[in-house]
């Protein structure tokens, strides 16, 4: 539902809206497929489609990118959580609350962080191959750092 809402809000302020609506429908379908078949692979595809329908059309947006990004994260987290809860359990009180609060807290915290990224992007820096290479290196370093940290943590 969140994915459909994200797609519809994007379609409302972009041209042509038919392709965007189709993308939103596809993302919703993929999420529904993932949840009904108990398989996670369609979820990242759905997230990519939702990201693409927001980013590809040019022009102003009703929903700002930080809020949309936060919504994407919320969609992904709720979808993965649904898959985690597929096993029939005898659940004691107070199990759902901590994770829900943590997800909402992270989603809320990402809005100012994304806004900071956008503000930084507005800085008047001339585009050059050197800066592009530095950006690419920063991406590789960022992804590499995350991977190394994940491995170190799993290895404990």
């Amino acid at each position, binding site marked *: 539902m969140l994915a459909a809402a994200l797609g519809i809000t994007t379609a409302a302020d972009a041209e042509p809206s038919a392709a965007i609506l189709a993308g939103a429908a596809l993302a919703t379908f993929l999420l529904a497929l993932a949840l009904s078949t108990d398989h996670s692979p369609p979820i990242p595809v759905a997230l990519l489609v939702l990201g693409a329908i927001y980013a590809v059309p040019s022009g102003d947006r009703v929903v700002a990118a930080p809020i949309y990004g936060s919504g994407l994260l919320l969609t992904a987290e709720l979808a993965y959580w649904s898959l985690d809860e597929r096993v029939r359990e005898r*659940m004691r009180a107070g199990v759902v609350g901590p994770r829900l609060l943590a997800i909402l807290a992270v989603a809320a915290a990402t809005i100012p962080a994304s806004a900071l990224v956008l503000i930084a992007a507005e800085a008047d820096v001339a585009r050059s191959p050197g800066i592009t290479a530095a950006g690419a290196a920063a991406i590789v370093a960022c992804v590499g750092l995350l991977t190394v940290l994940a491995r170190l943590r*799993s290895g404990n």
Partner: protein
Amino acid sequence: MTLSASPRLQTYTALTAIALVAALAAGRPELAALATPFVLLVAVALVGSAPLALEGTLRLDRERALEGERVRATATVSGGGTPARVELYLPTTERLHTDPSPIAFWLPRGQRREIPFELAVERWGVHHAGPAMVRARDRLGTFALEGKLGRPCELRAYPSVRRLDTLIEPLKTRPVLGSQVSRERGEGIEFADLRPLVPGDRVRRINWRATSRRRVPYVNVQHPEHSADVVLFLDTFAEAEHAEEGTLDAAVHAAAALASAYLAQRDRVALVSFGGVLYWLTPSAGTRQLYRIVDALLASDVRLSYAWKDITHLPRRLLPARALVLALSPLLDARGVGALLDLRARGYDLAVVEVSPMAHTPAGDGGSYRLPLRLWRLQRDALRARFEMLGVPVARWEHPRTSLELAIEEVTTFRRHARPALRS
């Protein structure tokens, strides 16, 4: 315990990489803004919390139980690391059963939770409960710690002992006070015969009516109440089993019921488990012997063995000369059958309760099974006839369709009409 990262961390990292590369290539900062929440979540998951740590134990309220009872157990889980959502998978087997669905609860840091649950003891035997399996996830569900909790706990489940109304009476007794009416003559309650008075007879034993009729003093002679030796012979070479119920299961229940009934009337009872693994209990009386027998029955199991065993492997004191040997056998293995025939040849008072494997044999729907099944039944009939020709009653017990009392009654009826020739 094994720590693993959620696959979604890799997914988020990959999505982040794609979005950032696309933002750089297309010069669209919005894409970097879309990727930022995912970067932030991964970063929070990696550095935002302490590692998961779990310890725990599994405890049963008691170590012994009766078949069919429920045993209370407690799983204790304590968390040493970050607060975690814990899923506890309780230990369950077909013979020691509990609800297999996991129990989910929230475990704050440094706290301990006790999860009580019940295990249903479905069958007798020595069971091992545990270890339980546990999975803990951190607050965001990004890391999971999985492993075993506690050590296996041993539970000895005793077979339920049925009360028997009838028992097979031994042909010979031993001269110790008991509840069996002996065939010998002496002092007792049951009237046996009359005989002329001899010096030393008590006056109170004179039968005045017979004396006045014959004009010579006659005295009453009674059957004394003696106890007997009973050897329960459990054939464990082979069994027929279907859907967790088999001939060995029935034989163990029958042995426990027979031991309880004979010991209750002050007889001495011995146990021989004759199979792949040979063990025995020498004859003894009393409640303690009942506990010994039931405890020994727990170890009864069919072990595959090609070793030829006969009764020479048994110690002599195990088989008293005047004992009733009561065999509980499916008559499936030639070694068990041979041992029984050998016992009869040595003059033992032998009775066989055949725990019929027919009830545990899937019914053939005709066709190719019909002929071999018929041949097998004919072979079994011939074997039964061979025993009966030797004066050994073979009562077929179709467990669970018929009761053990019916088989005992069949043995008693046979022995009433066809008494075996006893060893002089």
